[in-house]
């Protein structure tokens, strides 16, 4: 085989995605950039907020979590440096998520209790059935459906693995475009600390879960409830923790086949 035929002829949807996301005139961006570039003005506004958050974390991050983290670090420190990040990251992510979910759950229970009290005091509790939230109704009418899951090397945007329900566009180029869009957005707004977490395009949503050396991007159709979103995020973290232990130095077919099979197994065959 000499140089092969181009793998993609038409990138219509991709081009549109690109236009929608990127064609915002560069002028507007430059203006924003100028504002952001003025360090003093920016830091004056941002510093107190950051401080506040830090203080909150300092006071609220429970002791027992810190102990678990310490233990994890102890075990893994013996291994190589690069690996540490890859191993710790999903674990930390999962714990923080768990902590936040827990806090929310408590808040919710408090509210429920409060409501119950109020209604029973007024003697009308039991007359009204609990009504479904708009979110619940929506997600029943148009259930969430995972279309594709990409595992992508973070810097290069090279595709490490893919599981998909359809075989439409060139997935290598799509993985590259996701990465380019991520880089563009993250860079344009100088938010290295914050990372792009989702891209929405027509009735598709693309969720992104970032890790130090790679990220997972999930294309979803249908409407997604907060709970489903949460479950998806947990599953992505668990996948990362259990399956992406080591990243190869070269991206080869063998590497890709391996990860693709794992993704398929986790996201398209019922894994409980």
């Amino acid at each position: 085989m000499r140089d092969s035929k181009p793998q993609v002829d038409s990138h219509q949807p991709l081009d549109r995605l690109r236009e929608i996301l990127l064609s915002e005139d560069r002028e507007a961006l430059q203006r924003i950039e100028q504002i952001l570039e003025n360090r003093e003005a920016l830091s004056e506004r941002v510093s107190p907020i950051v401080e506040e958050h830090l203080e909150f974390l300092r006071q609220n991050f429970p002791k027992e979590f810190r102990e678990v983290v310490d233990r994890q670090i102890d075990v893994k420190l013996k291994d190589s440096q690069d690996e540490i990040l890859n191993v710790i990251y999903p674990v930390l992510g999962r714990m923080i998520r768990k902590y936040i979910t827990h806090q929310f759950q408590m808040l919710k229970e408090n509210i429920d209790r409060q409501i119950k009290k109020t209604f029973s005091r007024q003697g009308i509790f039991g007359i009204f059935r609990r009504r479904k939230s708009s979110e619940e109704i929506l997600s029943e009418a148009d259930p969430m459906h995972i279309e594709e899951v990409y595992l992508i090397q973070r810097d290069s945007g090279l595709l490490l693995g893919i599981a998909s329900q359809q075989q439409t566009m060139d997935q290598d180029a799509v993985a590259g475009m996701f990465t380019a869009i991520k880089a563009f957005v993250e860079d344009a707004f100088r938010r290295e600390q914050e990372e792009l977490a989702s891209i929405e395009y027509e009735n598709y949503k693309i969720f992104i879960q970032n890790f130090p050396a790679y990220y997972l991007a999930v294309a979803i159709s249908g409407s997604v409830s907060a709970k489903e979103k949460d479950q998806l995020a947990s599953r992505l973290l668990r996948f990362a923790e259990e399956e992406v232990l080591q990243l190869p130095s070269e991206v080869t077919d063998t590497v890709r086949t391996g990860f693709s099979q794992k993704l398929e197994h986790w996201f398209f065959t019922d894994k409980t």
Partner: protein
Amino acid sequence: MISKKIILTGSFGVGKTSLFNQFIYNRFDDKYLTTIGVKVNKKVIEIDGKELSLLIWDIAGEVSQDKVPNSYFLGASGIVFVFDLTRPSTYKNIANEIKYLQEIGDPNSIIKVVANKSDLVDEEKINEVAAEIQRPWDVITSAKTGENVQELFRELGRELIDAAE
């Protein structure tokens, strides 16, 4: 088959997209449609019986390289810096531009300097540019006629395969 990321960079209008289109689709367009953001596409080439998948990033040109989002260069095994033989402003600062790319690119990435639009200049002009440019180019191309376009990417591909072994 291994996959590698290559990025095309340089000032606006020097012919990055034209080289990309010539390499991937064997086509050329006289119209100038400036690139917005990035376009990524793939081509698989074969070198000494080994397949190599090139993921090529065609980015929006900037007058100076420090205007390009740094993260575009991350993880790129090859950086192709293109300038336009007919526009001195696209190469007058080339030494600094290349130095900058060496600093922000991955330490192992291979940088190629490409002098494009050779079809628009005669030999005398080429010698003139060669005499005044701060850094010699690696290859002289024409995205219009296709001169040296496949060769540029094949040579880069060969070096990438050698480096991977």
